[in-house]
């Protein structure tokens, strides 16, 4: 057995063991109370089988009694139309706001970071304010943001922006200060005009710092949107979770968490692929 396949084997074993414990361990509680802790109660953590059933139901593939309605008259389409925050609509809303918050956060953080990083005057003026603002736990501002911007999309984008902006800002700021001085001299000696020094040395060199912060930024954006949806929203996966919590439906919450996990992994992989393409010149292993 090669190293790689034994890794996969152990990984599969861990997944199966976890699923099995999750599904059946609580059933053994009458026989071994000391072994099975309270939190394994399906009331809290649901069960894989229930979560699966719930996922099918939330996706409008089955009806509430579990019968398959996909492709039937008054089936999936009618079911989706009946709820404007169905799983697909909610996913789209959450995804859309995440990407907007990410895009606006990254670009604004970059521009401000670049300006302050390259201007000693601006950085001396604003640095203390930014540090003070950054030390506020940003999540604490979410209720205010929702109050200010309402329960629509704007408040979610603003929340995501709050988290992403500072991450990218501090990275860019640091990068802009650490532009290799000999590259700047080199360009000037080759008769570069100041705007060329900016576009051909400073911007590409700080971009490498920003690319490195893209993966955490997309995760932060998703966190921001979900928290925003917890506080107040009409649509989104966070809204589905809050409703399910109110009803004590742990299986719905778990199903939503699984959808979020899939979104998170997809976004992170996408950004990672983009990042390694943009930073391909850093690859020394060839």
């Amino acid at each position, binding site marked *: 057995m090669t190293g790689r396949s034994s890794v996969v084997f152990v990984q599969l074993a861990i997944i199966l063991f976890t699923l099995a414990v999750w599904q059946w361990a609580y059933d053994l509680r009458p026989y071994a109370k000391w072994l099975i802790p309270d939190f394994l109660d399906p009331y809290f953590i649901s069960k894989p089988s229930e979560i699966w059933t719930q996922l099918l139901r939330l996706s409008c593939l089955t009806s509430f009694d579990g019968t398959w309605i996909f492709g039937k008259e008054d089936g999936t389409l009618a079911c989706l139309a009946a709820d404007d925050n169905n799983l697909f609509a909610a996913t789209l809303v959450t995804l859309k706001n995440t990407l907007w918050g990410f895009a606006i956060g990254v670009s604004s953080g970059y521009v401000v970071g670049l300006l302050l990083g390259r201007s000693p005057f601006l950085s001396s003026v604003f640095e203390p304010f930014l540090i003070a603002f950054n030390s506020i736990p940003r999540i604490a501002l979410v209720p205010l943001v929702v109050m200010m911007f309402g329960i629509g999309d704007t408040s979610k984008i603003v929340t995501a922006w709050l988290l992403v902006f500072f991450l990218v800002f501090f990275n860019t700021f640091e990068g802009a200060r650490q532009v290799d001085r000999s590259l700047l001299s080199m360009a000037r*000696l*080759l008769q570069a005009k100041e705007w060329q020094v900016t576009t051909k040395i400073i911007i590409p060199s700080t971009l490498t710092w920003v690319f490195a912060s893209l993966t955490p930024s997309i995760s932060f954006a998703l966190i921001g949107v979900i928290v925003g949806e917890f506080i107040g929203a009409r649509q989104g996966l966070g809204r589905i979770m809050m409703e399910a919590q109110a009803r004590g439906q742990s299986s719905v919450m778990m199903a939503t968490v699984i959808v979020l996990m899939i979104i998170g992994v997809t976004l992170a992989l996408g950004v990672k692929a983009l990042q390694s393409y943009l930073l391909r*010149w850093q690859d*020394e292993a060839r």
Partner: protein
Amino acid sequence: MSSMSPNPASLPTSGPAASKPTRISTRNLSKVFGTEDNQVVAVEDVDLDIREGEFVSLLGPSGCGKSTLLNMIAGLIPSSSGTISLDGEELEADHFSPKLGYIFQRDTTVPWRSVKKNIGFGLELAGVDSKTYNRKVRDAIAQARLTGFENAFPAMLSGGMRQRVSLMRTLVMEPEILLMDEPFGALDAHTKIDMHRLLLDIWERQHQTVVFVTHDLAEALTLSDRIILLSSRPGRVKEVFEVGFERPRDAVTLRETDEYSRLFSHIWHSLGEEMNTVGSQ
């Protein structure tokens, strides 16, 4: 020590360069680093005259201020006193003359640019048309034996290859005067000789005026027409040696000749005195 001599020690008195016009000259050039009460004199009262087409080395022990001297000529750092002129016109710091090409000691290839785009960087900045750009870059790549690496990024290259890229990036701009700050200092002995061959080859064809900073006597002897020996800190002109070896030179066989050995030991003695001064401080 400060004297405004009409015929500074550094002027060539014989050889083919003696009749050529002076390109670069410095008078009473000094550089003092540090604060009011903690001053370090790096360069003191240096008078230099570099003639058209001359290959001049500034040789001296580490820390003698030879790089500082070169960087003042390049305009990278301001002088504390004295003057620098290029073709009779006084130069100012922070103003980089297009007549000057500069090669750094450390690697200054742009990491996110391919070999081709690194070499073409200056041409791109100048906005030359793509036909000229492609021709010049292609020729430079062939000359530096970088064919096949056009699209490689610097991180994939050896130190010697990276320095060839830097050299070519400066040379494609066809500077009349080349200022080189220990450009091969970080390379191993073999690669260094390779670079000497390449540089001599290019110089034989184009005869740029070169000011070459080094602490390596063998390197200075191999390449130069004239060696200006600087004293240990503060850097002053200590002695000037004419290097009359026949050209074109071969970087390897030159070292096997008697006249090379004689001049080597002669200068080595002088250089050794300066090394000892550094050691005793």
